[in-house]
């Protein structure tokens, strides 16, 4: 065997070693991320809430001997006939409304900031970025007073309206639109499109990756809202599932089995939502707009 052949083996061996380390690392990271979800799912199939507690901290937390869907059935009727169905419906309605309106409002704002002839555009953009660093919790009390005075307590509106316009998502859309070729905007204006038509017919169809990103981030944020809905909802009318799960944690006892099943029920829609939109994260055909 020639020297060349011998020397060429070394890099291949080190490459294989690198791949093994890489695969193990990925596996460990995946395990850390997925194991709590897996544990949650397993626990939701266990009938005995004390057993769930006893299994925590051991490998039995990842195993169920006699799986059952009883917890899910009981969750369905826990706080009255199909109350959890209502909570789930409320959450879905709030999610759908917030994300739909949010996409329209934030993409419009981002488009105008990127391409509109708005006086003080740079200043507005700076203010929007500055607003992003303010945590939501710090404005929650004034917001609560405003919403209460407006007579919107315990309504869907109170859970949707304050979160529709967001500095983060407006800025995301702004960044996306600003990097599209200026000539697309100019071609549309020469073709006779109004600024609304340019946004709707040209820029919105091209912004599927941005729409998907904002949908996912906004959807997860809305779905996981807890502090605001617990402050603003007093009845079942507009209460979302995130708040309803707290009812399993009573003063006298904690229904771990049902809480786990309810958590799985809460997780499934947002997982489906994510899977539906995530492919747009990576796909974009904007590049074909220009040049050969």
């Amino acid at each position, binding site marked *: 065997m020639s020297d060349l052949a011998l020397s060429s083996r070394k890099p291949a061996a080190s490459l294989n070693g690198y791949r093994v380390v890489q695969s193990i690392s990925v596996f460990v990271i995946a395990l850390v991320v997925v194991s709590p979800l897996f544990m949650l799912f397993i626990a939701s199939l266990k009938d005995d809430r004390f057993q769930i507690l006893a299994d925590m901290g051991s490998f039995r937390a990842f195993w169920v001997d006699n799986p059952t869907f009883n917890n899910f059935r009981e969750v369905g009727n826990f706080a009255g006939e199909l109350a959890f169905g209502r909570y789930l419906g409320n959450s879905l309605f709030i999610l759908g409304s917030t994300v739909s309106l949010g996409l329209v409002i934030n993409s419009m704002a981002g488009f105008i900031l990127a391409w509109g002839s708005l006086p003080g555009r740079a200043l507005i953009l700076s203010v929007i970025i500055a607003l992003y660093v303010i945590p939501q919790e710090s404005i929650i009390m004034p917001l609560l007073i405003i919403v209460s005075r407006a007579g919107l307590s315990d309504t869907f509106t109170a859970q949707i309206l304050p979160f529709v316009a967001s500095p983060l998502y407006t800025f995301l859309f702004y960044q996306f639109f600003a990097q599209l*070729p200026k*000539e*697309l905007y*100019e*071609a*549309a*204006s*020469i*073709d*006779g*499109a109004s600024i609304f*038509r340019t946004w709707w*017919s*040209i820029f919105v*169809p*091209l912004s599927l990756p941005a729409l998907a990103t904002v949908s996912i981030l906004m959807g997860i944020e809305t779905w996981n809202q807890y502090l605001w809905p617990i402050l603003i909802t007093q009845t079942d009318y507009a209460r979302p599932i995130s708040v309803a799960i707290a009812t399993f944690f009573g003063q006298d006892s904690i229904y771990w089995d049902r809480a786990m099943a309810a958590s799985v029920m809460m997780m499934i829609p947002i997982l489906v939502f994510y899977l539906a939109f995530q492919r747009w994260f990576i796909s974009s*055909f*904007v*590049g*074909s*707009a*220009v*040049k*050969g």
Partner: protein
Amino acid sequence: MASVSIDNVAKFYGNHQVIHGIDIDIADGEFVTLVGPSGCGKSTLLRMIAGLEEISDGDIRIGDRLVNDVPPKERDIAMVFQNYALYPHMTVAQNMGFALKLKGESRAAIDARVKEAAAILALEPYLDRLPKQLSGGQRQRVAMGRAIVRSPQVFLFDEPLSNLDAKLRVQMRAEIKDLHQRLGTTTVYVTHDQIEAMTMADRIVVMKGGVVEQIGRPLELYDRPNNLFVATFIGSPAMNLLKGKAGDGGFVTEGGVVLPLPATATAGAATYGIRPEHLTLDETGFRAEVVVIEPTGAETQVLARCGGQTLVAVLRERVDLNPGDSIGLKPELSAVHLFAEDGRRL
């Protein structure tokens, strides 16, 4: 179709003036090329005609209508951009029909106009394709098709061929010229390529630093450039320019070479200009040393040094020369250009 009148138009960005009071009258149906180096203001001027840039001073008229404050969509113009600016999510047919759709035309009328334009540009097989499924030349044709379907009064082209390879550029150049001859629409075409300007235009506007250096027919500019800038910008290879002084015995270059002057020559000439094809091999001419020989088949370009300056001669005949050879070059007296110290033609 309509004429375009540009009257004392200026453009400022803050305090920085980029267009300095330009006057151009473009006749109905004329093909005018704005040509000049990067940053000369040619694209800015085109964008002002289109309404994509505000006019700081002066007037622009399309036909008899003052359009200074008229938005682009109401100017009845169509523009072809350097990077085509096709809508990537729309098919070729949708791209071409978009403007008509916005005008509220019926679907049947749009289809008919799109098919008509597609037939002119040989785009019929591609009507259902997306821009990303087309080659550079096809995309360029779609961009032109989008302009044609609107039957505008004026076509504006902003360096439309600069993204194409050399072969396709020559082909598209001929297609655009043919299109103009067939449609007869007034056309303003921006390019930095003087060959494009020379081959396509009825008239050329040469610009530099936001100022018009010369307006004229292509051969007028070639034969009688107004100044040194136009003389060097128009023509490839560029005109040979030799600095020196005109006197009774001829033009004496800085290197001491004596060049013959035409009888009508004006005293005070500071630069002697002669185009490469107006130099011929002649032992009675001035002496030069061959540096490089570039045979292209149809002609031979000879780069030669003479009195410390370099000259290019384009010879029709095939010559047997080698670097270092001493040759005689004779300028054609009727084709000599003389320029003053400030660059003006004498």
